[in-house]
């Protein structure tokens, strides 16, 4: 194939920008129509610490002016968009001198790490098992074991996480129960830290993987059966090709394509599921940051983290769009 055309690239880029813009606008609107006033929340938080505050309405007025809340909506909206583009989300209200950017920079690597490892795991495991489930030469006992391994599929990841936590952290004490790395270990590129980080990530990743891979197994099985009925499979058999070669070059290679599309479409949902899992395991990623921010009505942090999550998800989908023509030669680069 002749690679990705400029037209295709521009179209996909347009979709990417549009997605991010719509999401950003929603993030802008929702807190403003929701009940509660961030300035009032800040003042009440101050009064909790300091007891009674004199001329609080003066303070509120001053802050409203300082945060620009008295400006017309389009000025506020324009300023908001400009800040998004420059990744300037202001200060966290709950932990004041900290900027939102600092929070994001601290949390983001953990989420990306956990999410990409678990996504890679469930996608590979799920599709491989699905392929084996449909393949004619798979030993019968494997075909019995695979469906049995999928019992967790109908369980919410939240519950699976709690169960894993209960058995493997509290009962058996094999894995740590909270955090992304052990206490007293300095983050950095040193072996104890890396080991600890991997060790801490196993249970959270597992709780995502065990509830997710079953869907991919079933989806892949269905696709494999469809491919099995194609004419080129009959020809592959007539050609006397080796069974294993036929399995990966003719069957999996074709059956995986819709699965990859599905993965791009589910990325957003995955991020949502991750929020809860991070919370259960007190894993210091973006999910946890969002959760804490919501509890504290910390609007700048909610906006900043949500925006970054949406941005990364859209970016991942965009990258997949760019890669897809390379794996499916039939995708027309000009059209669609």
């Amino acid at each position: 194939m002749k690679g990705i055309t400029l037209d295709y690239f521009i179209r996909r880029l347009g979709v990417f920008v549009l997605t991010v813009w719509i999401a950003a606008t929603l993030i802008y609107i929702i807190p403003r129509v929701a009940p509660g006033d961030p300035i009032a929340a800040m003042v009440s938080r101050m009064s909790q610490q300091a007891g009674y505050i004199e001329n609080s309405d003066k303070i509120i007025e001053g802050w409203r002016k300082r945060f620009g809340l008295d400006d017309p909506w389009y000025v506020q909206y324009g300023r908001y968009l400009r800040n998004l583009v420059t990744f300037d989300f202001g200060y966290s209200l709950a932990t004041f001198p900290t900027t939102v950017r600092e929070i994001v920079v601290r949390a983001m690597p953990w989420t990306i790490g956990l999410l990409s490892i678990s996504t890679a795991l469930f996608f590979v495991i799920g599709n491989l098992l699905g392929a084996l489930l449909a393949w004619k030469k798979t030993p019968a006992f494997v075909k019995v074991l695979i469906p049995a391994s999928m019992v967790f599929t109908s369980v919410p990841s939240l519950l699976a996480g709690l169960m894993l936590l209960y058995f493997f952290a509290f009962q058996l004490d094999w894995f740590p129960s909270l955090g992304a790395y052990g206490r007293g270990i300095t983050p950095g590129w040193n072996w104890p830290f890396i080991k600890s980080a991997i060790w801490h990530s196993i249970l959270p990743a597992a709780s995502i993987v065990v509830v997710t891979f079953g869907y991919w197994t079933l989806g892949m099985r269905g696709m494999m059966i469809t491919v099995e009925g194609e004419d080129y499979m009959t020809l592959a058999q007539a050609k006397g090709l080796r069974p294993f070669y036929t399995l990966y070059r003719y069957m999996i290679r074709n059956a995986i394509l819709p699965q990859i599309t599905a993965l791009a479409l589910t990325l957003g949902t995955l991020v949502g599921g991750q929020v809860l899992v991070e919370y259960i395991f007190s894993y210091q990623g973006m999910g946890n940051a969002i959760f804490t921010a919501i509890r504290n009505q910390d609007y700048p942090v909610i906006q900043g983290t949500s925006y970054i999550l949406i941005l990364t998800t859209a970016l991942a989908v965009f990258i997949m769009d760019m890669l897809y023509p390379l794996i499916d030669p039939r995708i027309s680069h000009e059209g669609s």
Partner: protein
Amino acid sequence: MSSQANETTQKDWSKAKSVLKVRDLRIHYDTPKGAVIAVAGISFNLYEGETLGLVGESGCGKSTTAYGILQLIQPPGHIVGGEIQLDDRNLMGLSEREFRRLRWTKLALIPQGAMNSLNPTMKVHQQIADVITTHEGRQPKEKMRKRILELFKTVGLPARIYDMYPHELSGGMKQRVCIAMGIALNPSVVIADESTSALDVVVQRVVAQTLLKVKEMLGVAMIMIGHDMGLMAQMVDRIAVMYAGKIVEIASVQSLFKEPMHPYSQVLIESIPSLKEKKPLKITEGITHDPRNPPPGCIFQLRCPFVMEKCKTQEPPLRELKPRQEVACHLYEVSETGEVKNVAASA
């Protein structure tokens, strides 16, 4: 090699060596309501260098016969009985592994290429290369490239499609890729399954000529499956007419078209459309028997215009009524002097 493949009138096939022998092949498809008898005991020989046409209406078992020979019948279908011999070697007793080694080197398939027969995610040359590599081992890249381009040349494909994917080719090109693939390993028998169907007439002609040319070059024995009687007449040496899982008549093209003997062959040939006259379609649908319970006696009795009492009880065997013309019909009687008499005509 004969100068023209379809000019084989005087060739005596009975003296030629048979490459493929099929004896009493039976294939059933299991259904919840009982087995559908797709192939009900078929026997024929395929001689060296010969092209045998397998014709009949949809569902008569012609493709099932071919796929049975290639052992490509998918469940719920399965071979119930019979014997298939290739170069005096019985294929039925072979293990899956032994048979896999035989595939393509001895028995190749030319599928209906305009359909989905090529892997959409592999380049054309890779799909030819993989079968060569599988059966002959890895080869230097340049040598393989030369070999594949040579095959392209044989079937009249331009070298520029070497790196293309199937979806970038036209139907006729895909069909020729399938032909190139089929002859890649110089097999003894090639089965062409509806190779010229689903193509427009001009392309059909080009593909048919390619097939003939290739066949002539390699001297390979070929089974051609199709329902286009007109095209068959030009391409094959002998024709086997199938009806409901049985061969009802097998004869040289010339005899069959000049004087079809089985009533079914007669209506089949009469229904070839002609420009000179408007003919009504002789065969109507809907009066076939249930393929799960064929009636006793002749399978064609329900649609036969000459049906007799005998046809309802006794199954007519395939008899050689004229030289190289075998017919399964009670309509003809052979007298002691060897004369063939039409019972219905004399009555």
